[in-house]
C-alpha cells in the first residue's frame, strides 16, 4: 500500500480501529463489526449453519433485521395487514421471523411502522454512524458509507460468521479517491454523478478498492444525495464507498432514535471530527470528474457501466476495439433492442419505477412529486412510486406527496425493494422498457425480458409525463 507517512485516509482510520487480529501472510485481518443488518433473503442458510453447530448469535444487540426483498408492496387489507400471496415468500418471511425470535434479534416485520429497505432504515433510525463497521448480506450495504462508516456487502457464509462471532475475515482493500469538483447544474443530481463515475471506470473498475468520494460537489450534497452516490459504489466494482463526515452528517444524525445523546453526543462528534482523511494521505488510485460538466445520465445497456449523457447516441459495437467489449455491447443492444447511433431521447417507455435503496428516500420523493405537481403520467405509462420505508411513506403522506402522485396517475405503494429486484410480483413484462431509479439494469433484473434504463428520479418523473425518455431540464420551468 502506497503511503507517504504523512497521514491516513478515512478508510485506514476506520479499518485500523476495528482490527481484532492483524492481516498476516497466513491469514486475512479479522475485523470487528459494529452493526450487522439482516434481511429474509440472504440469512436463512446462515441461521441454519449456526443452529446446526449449536451456536448463539454473539451480539443480537448489534444486529437488526427487516423484511424488504421478497415482501409485497400492495395495499393493506381491512385489518391493516399486507397480505403475502406468494407461498415461498411467505415461508421465507416466517422463517426469518422465527430466526430473529429464537436468537433475540430485534426485527421489523412486514407492515411494522419502522419496516423498510435495510439500507434506508439503518440511517433513518440513527443506527448508521461515522467510523463504524457495518455489514449486511446485501451488496448495497455500501450506502452506509455516506456517513463515513466502512460498510460493505457479504455473502451468506459470512453472515453466519458475523452472527456467531461479530467478526469477519477480510483482506485489506486498496483505496481510490473519486474527486467530483465544481457544482451540479439545475436538473442534475447525485444519481447522475454516480452514473457518470461508473460509465467512466466501468463496472469492474473499482474491484478490490474502497472509494472515497471527495470534492466540492460531494460536500454540497445532502446526506440522502451522498447515500445515493455511495449506494452504487458496488456497480463500479468497489465493495464500499465512503464520504468524510462533516456538519451535514452530524445534523442528519442528531436526534434520531439511536443517536448518542447529551454529553455522549458531544463526545461522539468530537471523535467523528477526527475521521476525515488527513492532508497528504495517499490513495492507491485517483480519478476526477467535473460536476459542472455533467448533464442527466441514462444507461442504454445491460450493466450500469453502459451509461451516457441523456442526449448522447447509443455507441456502436464496431467502434469498440476490445473484442470482449464489442461482443458484450452487441449482446446488450440485442437484448435492449436498440440500434447503434440511436438517440434514447424520445424513446417510448412503458413503466417508470421510483424506488429502491438508491432513490426512495424522502428527498427523492419530494423531488419527483414537485415535478409531477399539476402534471399527468402519460396514458401509455405505468408509474410506480415505492417509498423506501414505512417512515418515508408516513413522512411523504404527511406532506401530501402521495396525493400529488395519485392525482398524476401514479401508483403509491407500501415500502420495500419492489421492482428493483422483482422478487415480489412487481415486475416488467417481457419486452417492456422502464426508466428506473434503481441501481441495476442487468438482463431480467426487473422481470424476465424487461429492459431497464437507469436514471435519476427527476429524469424518471419527466419521462413518465412525456411517455418517453426525456431530459428533465427541458421541463424544468416552474421548479424552484
Amino acid at each position, binding site marked *: 500500500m502506497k503511503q507517504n507517512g504523512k497521514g491516513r485516509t478515512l478508510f485506514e482510520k476506520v479499518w485500523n480501529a476495528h482490527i*481484532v*487480529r492483524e492481516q498476516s*501472510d*497466513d*491469514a*486475512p485481518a*479479522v475485523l*470487528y463489526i459494529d*452493526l450487522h443488518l439482516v434481511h429474509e433473503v*440472504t440469512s436463512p*442458510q446462515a441461521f*441454519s449453519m449456526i443452529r446446526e453447530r449449536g*451456536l448463539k448469535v454473539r451480539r*443480537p*444487540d*448489534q444486529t*437488526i433485521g427487516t423484511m424488504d426483498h*421478497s415482501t409485497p408492496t400492495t395495499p393493506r387489507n381491512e385489518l391493516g395487514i399486507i397480505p403475502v400471496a*406468494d407461498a*415461498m415468500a411467505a415461508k*421465507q418471511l416466517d422463517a426469518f421471523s422465527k430466526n430473529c425470535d429464537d436468537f433475540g434479534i*430485534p426485527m421489523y416485520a412486514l407492515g411494522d411502522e419502522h419496516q423498510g429497505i435495510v439500507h434506508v432504515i439503518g440511517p433513518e433510525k*440513527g443506527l448508521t*454512524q461515522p*467510523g*463504524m463497521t457495518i455489514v449486511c*448480506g446485501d*451488496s448495497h450495504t455500501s450506502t452506509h458509507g455516506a456517513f463515513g462508516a466502512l460498510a460493505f456487502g*457479504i*455473502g*451468506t*457464509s*459470512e453472515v*453466519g*460468521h458475523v452472527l*456467531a*462471532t*461479530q*467478526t469477519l*475475515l477480510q483482506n485489506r*482493500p486498496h483505496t481510490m479517491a473519486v474527486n467530483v469538483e465544481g457544482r451540479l447544474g439545475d436538473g442534475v443530481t447525485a444519481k447522475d454523478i454516480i452514473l457518470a463515475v461508473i460509465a467512466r471506470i466501468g*463496472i*469492474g473498475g473499482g*474491484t478490490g478498492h474502497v472509494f472515497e468520494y471527495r470534492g466540492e460537489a460531494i460536500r454540497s450534497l445532502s446526506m440522502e444525495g451522498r447515500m445515493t452516490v455511495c449506494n452504487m459504489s458496488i456497480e463500479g*466494482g468497489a*465493495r464500499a464507498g465512503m464520504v468524510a463526515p462533516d456538519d451535514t452528517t452530524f445534523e442528519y444524525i442528531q436526534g434520531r432514535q*439511536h443517536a448518542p445523546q447529551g454529553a455522549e453526543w458531544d463526545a461522539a462528534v468530537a471523535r467523528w471530527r477526527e475521521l476525515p482523511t488527513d492532508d497528504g494521505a495517499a490513495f492507491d488510485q485517483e480519478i476526477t470528474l467535473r460536476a459542472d460538466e455533467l448533464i442527466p445520465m441514462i444507461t442504454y445497456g445491460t*450493466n450500469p457501466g453502459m451509461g451516457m449523457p441523456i442526449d448522447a447516441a447509443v455507441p456502436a459495437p464496431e467502434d469498440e476495439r476490445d473484442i*470482449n467489449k464489442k*461482443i*458484450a455491447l452487441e*449482446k446488450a443492444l440485442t437484448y435492449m433492442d436498440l440500434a447503434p447511433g440511436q438517440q434514447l431521447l424520445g424513446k417510448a417507455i412503458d413503466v417508470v419505477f421510483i424506488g429502491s435503496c438508491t432513490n426512495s428516500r424522502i428527498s427523492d420523493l419530494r423531488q419527483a412529486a414537485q415535478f409531477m405537481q399539476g402534471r399527468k403520467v402519460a396514458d401509455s405509462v405505468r408509474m410506480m412510486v415505492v417509498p423506501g420505508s414505512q417512515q418515508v411513506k408516513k413522512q411523504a403522506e404527511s406532506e401530501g406527496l402521495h396525493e400529488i402522485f395519485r392525482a398524476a396517475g401514479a401508483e403509491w405503494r407500501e415500502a420495500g425493494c419492489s421492482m428493483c*429486484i*422483482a*422478487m415480489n410480483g412487481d415486475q416488467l413484462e*417481457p419486452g417492456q422498457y422502464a426508466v428506473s431509479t434503481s441501481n*441495476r439494469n442487468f*438482463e*431480467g433484473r426487473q422481470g*424476465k425480458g424487461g429492459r431497464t434504463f437507469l436514471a435519476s428520479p427527476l429524469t424518471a418523473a419527466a419521462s413518465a409525463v412525456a411517455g418517453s425518455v426525456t431530459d428533465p431540464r427541458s421541463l424544468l420551468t416552474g421548479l424552484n
Partner: protein
Amino acid sequence: MENVSQIRGSIVAIPVNDIDTDQIIPARFLKVTDKEGLGKAAFCDWRYLEDGDTPNPEFVLNRPEYSSASGLIAGNNFGCGSSREHAPWALLGAGFKAVISTDFADIFRNNSLKNGLLPIIVDEETQQQLFSLAEEDPSTSVSVDVEAQTLTLPDGRAVSFPLDGFAKYCLLNGVDQLGYLLALDDDVRAYESANPQRVVTSA
C-alpha cells in the same frame, strides 16, 4: 466443506463479459431457505425457452457434448452484482467445480472460495486459448492443482493463478472459516472490553 486439491475435467465456454449474479441465478429463485436444488436455476434465463422449462437448444450448456463439463471459462469480470451466495451454490449444483476468468467481482470470489468452487484468474491470452479449446474440442480436459496453484492446459502448459494463502489452506484441508474465527474468542473479548459498543439495536 470438503477439501479440494486436484480438479480434472472438461470445460465449457460462455465468452461473455461481466456475467452478473442475476444471470447466474435470477432473483426469483432466492425465495428458498436452504441451498439445495439450485443447480437447475443456474443461468436459467439463458438456459430455458420462454416457458422457463424447455431447454434452449442454442445455449451451450444444453449441448450434450458439454453436459459433463466441470469447468466454466467466462468473459472478463465474472460474478459482478449482488452478494447472493446462491450464485456459487447454483454453479456447484450444476456440476461446476471451477470458474475461469480474467477477474472476478470481490464478493463472488469470496463466496465461491467458502464453498469450494474455485475462481481461477488467468490472463487474456490464456482465456482466449481456453475459449478456442472448449469450442473446438468439447472433450478437452484441463487440470487444476490447488497446492501448486496451476492450471494445466492440454498442451502441457501450466499457468499459475493467484490464491490467497488462507483460502488455499482452507480449500486443501476442507476447513471452514467459522471454526477459525470461533477460536479467536479471547481476542474478540479483549477488543470488546477495550472499545465501547457503538450502537445498541435492542435499545
